[in-house]
């Protein structure tokens, strides 16, 4: 089977298996083994099966021979193959037009060869898109469940399912407490006792399965509506999981916070969706065939970067026309025929576009979508929920922070990249930069091991956003994937530590290296990976490659746009701080002497079911960045699906002035690359060294430093006072308004109603008198008459059943006889 | 944990008014375990009253005992609980020994443990198999008898008899073990051990079996004590009494140094219950299922004891000791001793006047008291539950009627 048919089936099934698992556990969870123990097996098997299918999909993607689009490439081979695939109905490669359509826009094969001589980057990448099921179709709007598959989809599937599998296995061990009745010492009942409740083991895996299903749904989604659906599903799942210990006040608050903060972002996203739909009438990424009309509908990517425009970005006709609605109204005022009007509008669209109609709409759409990503990926200013989300069980943190929820935002920006204008990209870059800096600084002072990791996640997400914002599409997504591995590793390690120490506080740890070697060493690998350790130009851990790519791109960006050099500073500085706090964490936890004997004495290595995932993830944290021969590395795989038209340097005059988004491959150029690599190495080394002298060989006392810079320290310990700020700005005014409205309700409306009620009562008493005297009188009269008649008639009733039968028979015979006598003719005849 | 009336499943609702019926179950009914006659007053299928009528097997054993010497009466004890004759022999022997203040040799002591515990296994096997039969499944019965046959084979080697052994006598045994017997006994135990799992599969965990036994015939600990129930019936209600541990010193001395835990539910757990099927959710302490389960556990417990006694016995040197002379005079006085037999506590009482022949002999049988509680347990249950309840009491009519 060709990849075009195979991939949607494989990934579709891989996507749905967790749903099956969810439903199964939902209905039969409590009956799966003792205390629902089998739920873990079901969920793990499901996600394992998904992993297997994803791996098969990856292999089939690779085997399908999609071109490596690094420097020089030739599309012909792949195009022909996708052409073959395109023949089957219902499956529609985005790069391909139907034969009926080909005269208009040209066959992609010919198209690619036609332009291959020039800049060489203009043909669209291979991707497959299509619909499984149309949820709703009305007018132009078609909401469907569909797929858009390119190499990132496949890669993300593998990454998500792999990490989720590891986490499932790990959680089966981690959550074993839930297998029995749990006494939650953190929840005090009114009686002063701890809460005693039933274990919710199966509930956990139920939510986990739904979570995986939702995330995979985002990854495979073929249109923005579907993305939005699963976006919200991910949100609700995170609500379930963060609030898993919902009896704890902190947990329920954190769950609500995550949910509400995300809603803020999602509101922006809705605006973006509306803008796109209003202007373009479609939310599909790729081209698709409408099942209703059978015609090809152009997808968003094609509309924004049309092939005839060499995939360069332009404001789509629809948006232009949407923005120029008043002009069109004017045209329509002269009552032209419909087709004439359409022709007229089409003719004047290029002119309007020149005048800048629709530019803002596209900007709003991009920013709107990005708003959603800000919420989900915890960017400034909506990052406050993520550290609180640590209230969930650690496997959840690992999942939320590595492969699923937060990755969704970055993934969406990556997926939506072709539509984003340079202005939007600049906003993204600055948001990312700000995020990475703020989060990194907060992480420096945090003492809760999970919080450090949480802020490091926020910071790394900032990195990714920044990378995408400065045009480093591959760099950003590459970092997303490598980060997924080492961050899940780090979280699981921290979970292992917490499992052993029963505390989150790093100040009580130390010296755990001896008792938990597996955890310590795998965590060290994670730390090295996240700071991008490696021997420059030779070999490194996965983070080394992805971080270098980001640095290089940021450097290139700041060279081409000197006014935005601050971004590069943020990146470099961020790298330094990252190295510092990560090794601070590691040193505090594992190195040195135990700080708390009690904790140390009880610490022990975690069971095999928890360490095996650690080792597996550690291996990937090391090798995920390596480029294999034959273009099999993650980076080159991502490169295969680079959106058309983003490979070259573009300069546009945008809202924020002229902006040059440099081509990514230029960052591989010698000078830039060397500088970036050396900077990265130096900053990381410096960070590690500083952490070393402060926490490993305490040459500098951290306390002294904190004392010396007390205002800054306080500021950082209080997390930049962001939560307090939000409380002041949003929560207090809302409460005030509510109080005011409540006062109106009680003072004005209630009184009015009371008056009404009093009046009604008076009227009713009059009515009651009439009812009693007149109406009842008539009815009683009738009743009395009936009663009298009944008294007379009751003598007929003997109550003897057999006698009644006799009566009936006599009656029947009599009627027959009478009828025969009287109407003899009619009966006989 | 008292359930409210509305939810109580055991409250039987009438929907049809029917006439009362008086039904005779037995003395020749397939499920009355011998010649027991139960008179049921039923309302449809619901038993409103049950009355056991006994005496069909009465043979004046106690009176005969007053005309025989102590050793001569041993064969009559065989015929009381004929399924556990060794235990009967032991009870009588120990009672007489108590009167004589006689202590058997160490070797005889271990041999006695070995023999009676083996007989306990055999007795419980019959009880278990027959209980399956009562509930309408025939196969477990034959599986149980298959294993019991092997025990009987071993006994045959020891004393020549397969049912009425008269092996344990006052002062020791009639004979020592034949050569190689211990190995054969061990071989049997090794072979038997995995088979217990089979019984659990066929009965203990069988859904229908559980449905038929759980919450049926619930005997509260108080009532069990009030009615004088003993043995597995008592322990099935959660009362922690076992004469092997709590009995008189002459009896408990026999088990000195043996490690065993009384098979009774404490704090919601049976000893070593992780090795056995979990208690089903429906079962409440004191119902038929628990009585049955206690017997199953005691089989395992007895196997352990047999293994221990084999070790000890084989390490003992010296002779078994001499049994009481056939017509040896008994000192004047009276004595009463209860021992823990498979069915419960079996007590023997004798009054002597200095002659070899006791002046009075009486036996207190466990089945008698256990059966006495059946009217209470069967009130309000269905006819089908009557065999289930009576079978779970595991009575032997020979013991009741004597």
């Amino acid at each position, binding site marked *: 089977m060709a990849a075009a048919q195979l991939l949607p089936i494989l990934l579709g099934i891989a996507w749905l298996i967790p749903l099956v698992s969810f439903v199964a556990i939902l209905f039969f969870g409590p009956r799966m083994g003792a205390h629902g123990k089998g739920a873990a097996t079901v969920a793990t098997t499901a996600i394992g099966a998904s992993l297997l299918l994803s791996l098969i999909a990856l292999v089939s993607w690779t085997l399908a021979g999609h071109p490596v689009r690094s420097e020089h490439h030739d599309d012909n081979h792949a195009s022909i193959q996708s052409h073959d695939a395109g023949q089957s109905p219902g499956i529609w490669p985005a790069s391909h037009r139907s034969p009926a359509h080909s005269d208009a826009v040209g066959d992609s094969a010919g198209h690619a060869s036609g332009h291959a001589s020039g800049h060489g980057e203009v043909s669209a990448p291979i991707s497959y898109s299509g619909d499984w099921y149309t949820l709703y179709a009305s007018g132009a709007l078609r909401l469907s469940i569909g797929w858009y598959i390119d190499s990132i989809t496949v890669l993300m599937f593998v990454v998500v399912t792999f990490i989720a599998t590891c986490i499932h296995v790990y959680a089966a061990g981690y959550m074993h407490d839930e297998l029995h009745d749990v006494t939650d010492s953190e929840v005090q009942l009114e009686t002063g006792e701890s809460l005693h409740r039933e274990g919710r083991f199966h509930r956990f895996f139920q939510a986990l399965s739904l979570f995986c299903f939702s995330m995979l749904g985002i990854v495979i989604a073929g249109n923005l509506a579907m993305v939005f659906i699963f976006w919200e599903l991910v949100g609700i799942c995170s609500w379930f999981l963060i609030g898993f210990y919902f009896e704890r006040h902190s947990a329920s608050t954190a769950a609500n916070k995550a949910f509400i903060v995300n809603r803020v972002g999602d509101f922006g996203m809705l605006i973006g969706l509306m803008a796109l739909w209003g202007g373009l009438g479609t939310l599909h990424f790729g081209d698709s065939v409408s099942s209703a009309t059978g015609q090809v509908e152009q997808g968003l990517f094609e509309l924004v970067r049309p092939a005839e425009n060499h995939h360069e970005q332009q404001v789509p006709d629809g948006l232009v026309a949407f923005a120029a609605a008043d002009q069109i109204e004017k045209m329509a005022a002269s009552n032209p025929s419909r087709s004439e009007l359409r022709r007229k509008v089409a003719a004047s669209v290029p002119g309007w576009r020149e005048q800048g109609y629709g530019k803002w709409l596209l900007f709003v759409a991009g920013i709107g979508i990005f708003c959603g990503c800000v919420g989900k990926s915890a960017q400034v200013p909506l990052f406050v929920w993520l550290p609180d989300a640590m209230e969930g069980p650690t496997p959840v943190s690992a999942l939320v922070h590595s492969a699923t929820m937060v990755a969704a935002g970055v993934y969406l920006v990556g997926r939506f990249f072709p539509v984003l204008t340079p202005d939007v990209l600049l906003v993204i870059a600055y948001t990312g930069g700000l995020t990475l800096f703020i989060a990194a600084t907060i992480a420096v002072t945090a003492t809760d091991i999970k919080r450090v990791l949480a802020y490091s996640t926020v910071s790394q997400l900032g990195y990714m956003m920044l990378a995408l914002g400065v045009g480093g599409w591959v760099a950003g997504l590459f970092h997303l994937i490598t980060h997924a591995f080492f961050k899940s590793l780090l979280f699981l390690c921290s979970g292992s530590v917490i499992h052993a120490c029963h505390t989150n506080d790093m100040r009580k740890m130390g010296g755990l290296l001896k008792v938990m070697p597996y955890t310590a060493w795998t965590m060290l690998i994670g730390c090295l990976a996240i700071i991008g350790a490696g021997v420059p130009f030779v070999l490194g851990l996965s983070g080394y490659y992805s971080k270098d790519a980001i640095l290089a791109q940021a450097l290139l960006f700041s060279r081409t746009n000197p006014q935005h050099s601050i971004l590069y500073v943020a990146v470099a500085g961020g790298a330094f701080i990252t190295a510092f706090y990560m090794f601070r964490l590691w040193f505090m936890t594992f190195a040195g002497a135990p700080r708390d004997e009690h904790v140390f004495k009880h610490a022990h290595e975690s069971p095999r079911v928890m360490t095996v995932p650690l080792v597996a993830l550690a291996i990937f944290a090391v090798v995920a960045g390596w480029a294999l021969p034959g273009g099999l590395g993650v980076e080159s795989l991502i490169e295969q699906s680079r959106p058309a038209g983003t490979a070259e340097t573009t300069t546009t005059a945008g809202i924020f002035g002229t902006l040059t988004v440099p081509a990514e491959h230029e960052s591989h150029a010698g000078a830039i690359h060397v500088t970036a690599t050396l900077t990265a190495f130096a900053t990381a080394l410096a960070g590690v060294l500083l952490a070393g002298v402060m926490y490993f060989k305490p040459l500098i006392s951290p306390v002294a430093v904190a004392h010396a810079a007390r205002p800054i320290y306080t500021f950082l310990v209080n997390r930049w006072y962001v939560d307090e700020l939000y409380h002041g700005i949003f929560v207090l005014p809302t409460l005030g308004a509510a109080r005011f409205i409540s006062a109106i309700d009680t003072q004005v409306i209630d009184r009015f109603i009371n008056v009404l009620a009093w009046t009604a009562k008076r009227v009713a008493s009059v009515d009651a008198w009439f009812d009693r005297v007149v109406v009842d009188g008539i009815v009683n009269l009738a009743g009395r008459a009936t009663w009298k008649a009944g008294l007379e008639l009751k*003598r007929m009733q*003997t*109550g*003897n059943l*057999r006698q009644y039968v*006799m009566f009936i028979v006599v009656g029947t015979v009599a009627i027959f006889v009478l009828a025969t006598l009287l109407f003899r003719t009619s009966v006989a005849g | 944990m008292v359930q409210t009336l509305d939810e109580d499943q055991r409250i039987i609702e009438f*929907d049809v008014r029917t006439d009362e019926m008086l039904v005779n179950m037995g003395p020749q009914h397939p499920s009355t375990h011998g010649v027991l006659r139960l008179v049921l007053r039923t309302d449809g299928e619901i038993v409103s009253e049950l009355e056991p009528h006994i005496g069909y097997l009465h043979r004046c054993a106690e009176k005969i005992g007053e005309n025989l010497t102590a050793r001569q009466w041993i064969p009559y004890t065989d015929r009381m609980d004929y399924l556990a004759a060794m235990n009967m022999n032991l009870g009588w022997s120990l009672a007489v020994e108590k009167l004589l203040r006689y202590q058997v040799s160490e070797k005889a002591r271990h041999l006695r443990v070995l023999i009676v515990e083996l007989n306990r296994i055999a007795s419980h096997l019959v009880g278990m198999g027959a209980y399956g039969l009562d509930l309408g499944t025939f196969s477990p019965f034959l599986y149980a008898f298959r294993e019991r046959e092997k025990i009987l084979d071993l006994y045959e080697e020891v004393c020549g008899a397969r049912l009425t052994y008269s092996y344990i006598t006052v002062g020791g045994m009639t004979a020592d073990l034949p050569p190689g017997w211990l190995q054969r006994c061990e071989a049997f135990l090794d072979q038997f051990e995995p088979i217990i799992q089979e019984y659990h599969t066929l009965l203990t965990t069988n859904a229908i079996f559980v449905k038929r036994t759980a919450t049926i015939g619930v005997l509260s600990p108080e009532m069990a004590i009030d009615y004088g129930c003993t043995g597995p019936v008592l322990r099935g209600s959660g009362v922690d009494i076992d004469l092997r541990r709590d009995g008189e010193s002459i009896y408990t001395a026999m088990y000195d140094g043996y490690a065993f835990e009384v098979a009774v539910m404490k704090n919601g757990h049976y000893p070593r219950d992780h090795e056995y099927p979990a208690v089903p959710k429906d079962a409440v302490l004191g119902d038929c299922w628990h009585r049955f389960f206690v017997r199953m556990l005691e089989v395992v417990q007895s196997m352990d004891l047999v293994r221990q006694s084999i070790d000890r016995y084989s390490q003992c040197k010296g002779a078994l000791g001499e049994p009481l002379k056939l017509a040896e005079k008994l000192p004047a006085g009276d004595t009463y001793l209860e021992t823990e037999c498979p069915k419960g506590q079996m007590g023997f009482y004798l009054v002597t006047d200095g002659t070899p022949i006791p002046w009075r002999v009486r036996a207190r049988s466990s089945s008698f008291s256990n059966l006495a509680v059946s009217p209470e347990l069967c009130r309000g249950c269905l006819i089908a539950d009557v065999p289930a309840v009576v079978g779970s009491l595991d009575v032997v009519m020979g013991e009741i009627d004597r």
Partner: protein
Amino acid sequence: MMLALLGVASVSHYLVVGAIMFCCGVVCMAVKRNALGVLMGIELVLNGANLNFVAFGSNYLAADGRSPLGLDGEVMALFVILLAAAEAAVALAITLNFYNNHATVDVDRADDLHG
């Protein structure tokens, strides 16, 4: 004698059988004091009526091969059977209730509704 058996099965014959059953049912209802007997009488009556329906609905019995009622007869018979079953259920329930309250099934004692 055997020749005499020829051609006896006509609609009229069915009707006669039905009439006999009907009358037996009526008598049963009239003379049985046992409520269950009355019930059985009702069953007989319904059955007699049913026989008529089937007879009129049968093409096989019709002189010209086309029955007066056609399929309607069978449908009616089916309905009667169903309703008879329902009637039996309700009547039994009533009888049981009566028995619960009066400890008898004698319909002559069921005269609480007399005037």
